[in-house]
């Protein structure tokens, strides 16, 4: 029987494994037991010495590398990481999990690309491990873990964190009178009288069954991972210097992510770095074009201030923001603020002027809000001394646009492939560049 900690490192069993670890210095020492387990794992490729972890630190790095390569490397070879799906490895895996989470927590915090990769990798690992089990074994294991994570009656509001981080979408859950329906008995009691011309058992298996339970379990453990990283981060801010070993490991983690990003692009995006360059209106998405023409009905303020200003400023100065995930200030790219004054603001003001009625005619105070959204505080003039008083707002996602400004969203074919107007812009820029290169040929 697979141990609970193989799936849930937060289980009591998992925590006990960490308590039993002993001397932290041993983490770098060659571990014959680990090497032996890896070599014995079914399907493991042992021809390449480089793919065998030799100690706990190696194991931690391989754990993350597996995810990054699996996600991004078209020639990913699962046999190099087969041991990660072998339950025999549980003890080493749990320690690797905590090492990674702590290193990411102390060095990068919960809102970093490293944290995101760690949380996602934990999710994928659980999914892959469950996929290797027999149905009956999987069912028992999932039930056991869920029992420890949930009460008998679960309200949907219990999943507030998962809903907020979009790990779970409300329509994925079957809810009745506020309760999430997971068990067959509850399902039958709530819905069997409503189901006509179909077998209620079959309906339960299709709509709830094992997959919703697995989904909830997986997402809850992912959320716990995120929360754990956050707790470590908070603690490290309050307390003494973090362990140098963790900082060293954090550097290695960052390297793995950067190497994969440079080779294949992070988050599935293609192509390399996108540098700041003059705006190309031909690449603007339909929603931006609409706002630039001026808003003729309601929602002028939100369209100009919350939507257009962040879009234009990031598209011009820092189009790579989502790919790099590093916070920057406007002046990091435009130290004299010449681009802001000569290129970005004229476009924003022009769009405001074309609104009906012109935005600044009845609401001149909104100029201050434009400055605020670029990070220059609530002031009438953009000045470097005020930079940082407010946050440089990142462009709204398509989902937010649909909620805030539904009339703007008139998607074209490219829109179906992106989740943010800025991604549209980058994609289009590449297409235009590709066409131009092609025509030169």
């Amino acid at each position, binding site marked *: 029987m697979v141990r609970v900690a193989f799936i849930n490192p937060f289980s009591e069993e998992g925590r006990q494994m960490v308590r039993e670890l002993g001397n932290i210095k041993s983490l770098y020492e060659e571990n014959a037991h680990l090497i032996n387990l890896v070599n014995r794992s079914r399907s493991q490729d042992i021809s390449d010495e480089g793919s065998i972890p030799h100690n706990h630190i190696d194991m931690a790095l391989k754990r993350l590398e597996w995810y990054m390569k699996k996600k991004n490397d078209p020639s990913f070879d699962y046999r190099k990481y087969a041991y990660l799906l072998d339950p025999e490895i549980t003890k080493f895996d749990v320690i690797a999990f905590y090492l990674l989470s702590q290193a990411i927590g102390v060095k990068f915090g919960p809102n970093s690309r490293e944290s995101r990769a760690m949380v996602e990798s934990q999710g994928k690992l659980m999914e892959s491990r469950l996929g290797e089990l027999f149905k009956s074994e999987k069912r028992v294991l999932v039930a056991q873990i869920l029992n420890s994570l949930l009460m008998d009656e679960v309200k949907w509001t219990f999943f507030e964190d998962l809903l907020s981080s979009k790990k779970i979408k*409300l329509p994925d859950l079957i809810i009745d009178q506020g309760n999430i329906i997971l068990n067959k008995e509850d399902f039958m009691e709530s*819905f069997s009288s*409503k189901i006509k011309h179909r077998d209620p058992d079959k309906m339960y298996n299709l709509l709830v069954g094992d997959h919703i339970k697995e989904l909830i379990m997986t997402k809850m453990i992912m959320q716990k991972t995120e929360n754990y990283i956050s707790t470590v981060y908070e603690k490290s801010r309050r307390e003494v210097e973090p362990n140098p070993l963790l900082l060293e490991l954090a550097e290695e983690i960052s390297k793995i992510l950067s190497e994969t990003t440079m080779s294949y692009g992070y988050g599935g995006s293609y192509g390399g770095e996108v540098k700041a360059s003059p705006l190309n209106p031909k690449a603007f998405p339909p929603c931006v074009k609409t706002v630039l023409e001026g808003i003729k009905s309601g929602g002028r303020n939100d369209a100009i201030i919350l939507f257009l200003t962040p879009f234009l400023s990031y598209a011009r100065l820092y189009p790579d923001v989502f790919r790099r995930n590093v916070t920057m200030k406007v002046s990091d790219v435009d130290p004299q603020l010449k681009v802001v004054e000569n290129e970005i603001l004229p476009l924003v003001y022009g769009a405001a002027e074309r609104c009906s009625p012109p935005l600044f005619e009845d609401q001149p105070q909104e100029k201050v809000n434009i400055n605020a959204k670029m990070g220059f505080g609530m002031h009438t003039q953009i000045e470097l001394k005020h930079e940082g008083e407010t946050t440089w707002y990142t462009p709204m996602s398509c989902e937010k646009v649909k*909620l805030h400004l539904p009339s703007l969203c008139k998607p074209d074919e490219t829109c179906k492939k992106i989740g943010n107007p800025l991604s549209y812009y980058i994609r289009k820029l590449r297409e235009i560049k590709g066409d131009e290169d092609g025509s030169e040929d």
Partner: protein
Amino acid sequence: MEREESPILKPATLDERRKYYREEWDVKEIPEFIRESVLKREFGFDHMGRGPNDRYRVFRSADLLRKFLRYRAPFAAYSSVAFYDKPRRRDGWIKSELVFDVDAKDIPLRMCGCEGVCEICLNQAREIVCSLMDTLKGDLGLNDIHVVYSGRGYHIRVLDESVMKMDSDVRAQIVKYIIGAEVPHNEYAEEGVTYNLEHFSIPFGYPHVFTLRAKYSILHLSEAIQMEGVNQKLVKDAIKHQELIKNDEWGIFRNKIGPIRYQRLMNGIASLNMGLVDAKVSIDLKRILRLPSSLHSMVSMKSMEVKNIENFDPFEDAVPRFVYERKD
């Protein structure tokens, strides 16, 4: 033919506002859920009819709010959905009501074609509110729900403690769930075999919510409607087979329309549903909303808490006395 707007719906003069607040209005008409939390809320006022520019007002008691309204007779009065430790600075956010704003002039598929609001679109807004409330109660199990007639539509205000601390992202998910903003999956897998189950064959959960909203939309379609990705021919065909939807014969309707066109129609309806409520009101944790019992001076109607939405008629229940005393 376009219906004319009701003669009631014309702006109130300053004298009429004064008359309303001094002779007709009573502080006890402010719902208890606001009166008991006056200290924690921000208040805002519009004195000239140019928007609520007088913000960040606080009152130490309902009686001080009463005096202010009596004396100033504002064009419009608002209070925050948020509770703060320091409402004067909008600082120390504690929690916010979960709010859904159904504005009669903005709902999709209006049957009236009027410019502003009229009896017909207000009644449509009321029907939508009833249906959203059923989902809030039946699916999401929420109970502390208050409906307020705003003067041009309705506010659903939820005060269940379990949702009041939720952030904007969770609220966005709730809005999308109750309005049916996404077409549910139609493929479900079991042991490697995929089965096709359309939303209308699942009588519970989100698929059922979507079916109810889609039914409402199809039954209110008109040929003039513009829907994303849906051409005029498809709209016409949907209207032609409306009767089938009325009788819940969805399978036959889908066959008549054709499965690919049906999918296109559902996508169009999902995006139309986004207009059922003003979603940005729901996700804004610091919004101010029209104060129930105050006067909506633009249309000379009382904003008021509605005790029984099924029977509520704003043209009977929310018309201030001064309107009946008008000479013209």
